[in-house]
């Protein structure tokens, strides 16, 4: 009888290890690579044709862009999109650090997991002011008029830099995530 019980125990442990492994596999969330997708869409809803031919923006020409944020992080995210104006010589952000340029606009939003949120980025260059050999832009951005503090030599291109920051709940702060840029020339 004692031998039978021992055999039963061995068999039970053997089968339990198999069935427990199956249960573990079935109940464990499947691994996935968390990421946030970031895209800028033109008024045509495409990833091209942001400005006129040769990336040229004419004075008072309205540009309607959509900033598309897709959350694949596995849970709800609090996202901040920062836009800055740069020129040919400014140091852009990189994989780990944001740009140190002044902030042009700052938008925040909550994006549910597996969802996409859109932000409007409607802008028009309303004036170009030459000063000290550089051209300074006055931009109407989402209905707000802004004067750029960054100038560029006449004929040189500008660029919008867009950064995504995500809120880290353990640190209670936004953290830089990634960036995009779009170049453009200005024609009076």
């Amino acid at each position, binding site marked *: 009888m004692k031998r*039978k019980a021992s055999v039963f125990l061995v068999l039970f*442990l053997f089968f339990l290890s198999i069935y427990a492994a199956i249960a*573990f596999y079935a109940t464990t969330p499947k691994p996935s690579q968390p990421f946030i997708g970031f895209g800028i869409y033109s008024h045509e809803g495409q990833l091209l044709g942001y400005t006129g031919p040769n990336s040229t923006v004419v004075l008072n020409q309205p540009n309607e862009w959509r900033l598309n944020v897709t959350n694949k992080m596995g849970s709800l995210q609090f996202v901040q999109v920062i836009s800055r104006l740069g020129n040919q010589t400014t140091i852009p952000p990189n994989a780990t650090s944001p740009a140190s340029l002044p902030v042009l606009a700052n938008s925040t939003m909550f994006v549910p997991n597996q969802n996409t949120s859109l932000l409007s980025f409607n802008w028009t260059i309303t004036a170009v002011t030459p000063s000290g050999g550089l051209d300074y832009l006055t931009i109407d951005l989402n209905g707000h008029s802004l004067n750029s503090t960054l100038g560029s030599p006449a004929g040189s291109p500008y660029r919008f830099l867009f950064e995504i920051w995500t809120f880290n709940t353990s640190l209670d702060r936004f953290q830089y995530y990634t960036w995009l840029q779009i170049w453009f020339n200005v024609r009076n």
Partner: protein
Amino acid sequence: LRTGLFVLLVSLALASSFPAASTMTIAQETPVNGSGNQLIIAFQAVQKADSLGAPADQVAKLSAQLNNALGYYNTAVELAAQGNPTASEYFQLSNQTSTVVIAKALILQSDAENSRRNELLTAYITAIVAATMSALLVLEYHQIPNFLRKRKLLNTKLRLRDSNETQG
């Protein structure tokens, strides 16, 4: 001793089934305005419910409410910067919306935790029952043919032979 061994095994399996927290590379940081604390608490509560496995449609509803609260908060900040006294009303609206979201998120968290616990319990109890049945099956396999024969014999109808047949 056997019971202790089983409990240890099941506990280890349960403990290892919880996923480890993922990490993210940190670069630079920017502080969030202190008066938006309620909003952040609400966000944390919804995010936790989401991570615990709350239904996506429920989380999406709370997310929409959070965006409303954020809209009120941003309006309040803008008005406060202009010195507009109605800013406090928007701060209040933001706080109220955030408070409602926190309450709903806590319920979602609790539901999600219960659901997860039940799921794990069901899975591992099924594993234990299946292991017991399998062990018994292997151990008592040799008795199955005898058992089947016995059943067959018991189900066999007895028929008395006819007297003419006996004589013939």
